[in-house]
């Protein structure tokens, strides 16, 4: 990978992030309801109070450049304003509280499903029409097409409500997080099990289907016939020739998906009342908590851009053809 390629990608990422910040600024100023009214939440305010508030928050200044400049300045300082709903709390700390649970659930789910999904998909595609393919592809397609709550609800009904093996919702029992080690971890793991299974199953479906078609496409390439002609064992042909080439399109897909990890798996989080960014998004939407929504939007957008950058870099390392 050349320095030029790397430089280009970096520049592209920086420009995209700048555009996102600008869009974020404009978009939320076009939303219905003037900011100060939402701030004060009282339709019967005296004009005086409104004026004072406008002056205090700098809303009497022109949108561009004054408001934009101060927005960019505070964004760079990590100040995303204050939540409407969680009064007084800075947006950054509201969001920060939810990042951990989401990363735990969706991040771990991604990790598991990348490995499992790719392994299943690669094997199914390589032995197309075999048992693994016929069973695996059918199941994968069903899982892939189901929204998380359709996967999650039966799990709750069977394993939580029915068998009582796992709790139905939340991340900890009451006081569970304060118990001594390892009880607190066990408590967390029991809460994590079903939502993690839900997220993983959905993603395994997606990854295995895509990996299967990538392998099938690669399988008919001439260099696979060459590898066979060399008398290499079937496993070596798959590992050394088909797999690395089939992984090229997968890398991009995985990296982009990873960017969205931070946004949480909204329906899965809701079904299990998981205190992550997904549930926060829904709460913020319901209460028109614009600063928080703006913060989440910024976080997700920047993560996606960074994930794309990572994808380009990894792709550049794996595929010699882009090194020039």
């Amino acid at each position: 990978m050349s320095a030029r390629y790397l430089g280009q990608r970096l520049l592209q990422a920086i420009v995209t992030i700048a555009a996102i910040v600008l869009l974020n600024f404009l978009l939320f100023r076009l939303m219905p309801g003037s900011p100060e009214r939402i701030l004060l939440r009282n339709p019967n305010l005296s004009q005086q109070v409104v004026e004072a508030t406008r002056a205090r928050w700098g809303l009497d200044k022109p949108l561009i450049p004054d408001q934009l400049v101060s927005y960019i300045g505070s964004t760079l300082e990590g100040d995303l304003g204050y939540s409407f709903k969680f009064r007084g709390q800075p947006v950054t700390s509201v969001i920060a509280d939810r990042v951990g649970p989401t990363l735990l659930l969706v991040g771990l789910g991604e990790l598991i499903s990348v490995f499992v999904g790719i392994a299943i998909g690669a094997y199914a595609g390589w032995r197309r029409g075999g048992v693994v393919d016929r069973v695996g592809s059918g199941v994968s397609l069903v899982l892939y097409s189901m929204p998380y709550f359709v996967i999650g609800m039966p799990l709750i009904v069977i394993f939580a409500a029915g068998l009582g093996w796992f709790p139905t919702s939340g991340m900890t029992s009451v006081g569970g997080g304060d118990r001594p080690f390892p009880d607190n971890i066990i408590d967390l793991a029991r809460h994590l099990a079903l939502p993690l299974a839900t997220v993983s199953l959905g993603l395994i479906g997606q990854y295995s289907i895509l990996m299967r078609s990538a392998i099938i496409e690669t399988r008919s390439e001439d260099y696979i016939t060459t590898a066979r002609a060399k008398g290499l064992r079937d496993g070596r042909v798959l590992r050394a020739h088909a797999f690395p080439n089939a992984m090229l399109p997968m890398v991009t897909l995985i990296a982009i998906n990873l960017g969205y990890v931070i946004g949480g798996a909204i329906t899965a989080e809701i079904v299990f009342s998981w205190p992550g960014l997904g549930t926060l998004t829904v709460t913020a939407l319901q209460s028109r908590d614009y600063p928080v929504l703006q913060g989440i939007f910024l976080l997700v957008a920047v993560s996606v851009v960074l994930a794309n950058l990572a994808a380009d870099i990894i792709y550049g390392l794996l595929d010699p053809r882009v090194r020039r």
Partner: protein
Amino acid sequence: MTAEIRGRRQWPLPKQADPAAPLLRVNNLQTHFQLGRGWVKAVDGVSFGLDDGEALGLVGESGCGKTTTALSLVRLLPSNGRIRGGSVELFGIDLVPKTDRQLDRYRWREISIVFQGAMNALNPVVQVRRQIAEPVQYRLNQSESASLKRADELLDMVGIPSRRLGAYPHELSGGMRQRAMIAMALACDPAIVIGDEPTTALDAMVQAQILVLLEQLRRDLGLSLILITHDLSVVAETCDRVLVMYAGRVAEEGPVSRVFTEPRHPYTRKLLGAFPNIRSDRRTLETIPGEPPDLVNPPAGCRFAPRCAQAMPVCAGTLPPEVSFDDGVRVACHLFGTTA
């Protein structure tokens, strides 16, 4: 010839080999492809032999089954392809009934292939020298460093400069890639190298260089060569024998010197007439009217009958038997009946 060439082998013959048996004998090979509407009889009763150090040219129109014949030898067919009859005897060992696992012993170590258009035949994400070293390491069980050393020697032998050793396929020109393919084909010191249109898609200058290289390697290493090509002048220059195929069957086979000077089969005559360089006069260039037959339902008799100017009543209904002549030529045509 045979003893001298076999004496040059670096690796012992396969265990079941009969040292007295000829190198390769293909008998009545039938390779068909399964399609929804039936079997495509791409190769349907082809027989030929190849002796130590010999070069055999395989010619015929596009779709007549040249590639399928070559791929059948070590069974590298597409998934819908099957050998439904005949035998492929290498050193007297029939390869047809072998399992894939058993065939691996013969692939590349005895029969290697230089495919057409080496751009796609080489793995784009693996260094060329590693692809050449791979069969040495995994088939001859050499260490990785010894395999890479061998790869570098081979690259040197085919004329790739040492500063290009770390190159990936896309970093080499078409001619270089084809040289690398040839180096790869030689990696395990095989008895037979198959070239499936190894110079197609290269410009004339590079084509000539590659052919000179192949010819020189064949002489130096005592290789036997099966050369598939559309270029009859290449066959005339490099091959000892030529096999003319039509619609999955042998039309004519024999020494190049005989077949090209005195073609007997009407199809061979047309083919030579359609080729400018052999009979030098470009203005009388002939074309062969009509299309090759549908190989799912080929004609019952001679497959060339619908296009043959000399066709007789017997041709449409009866398959012409192969007739051998004293000069080593074999022809399948009713014009040369057993009694004729």
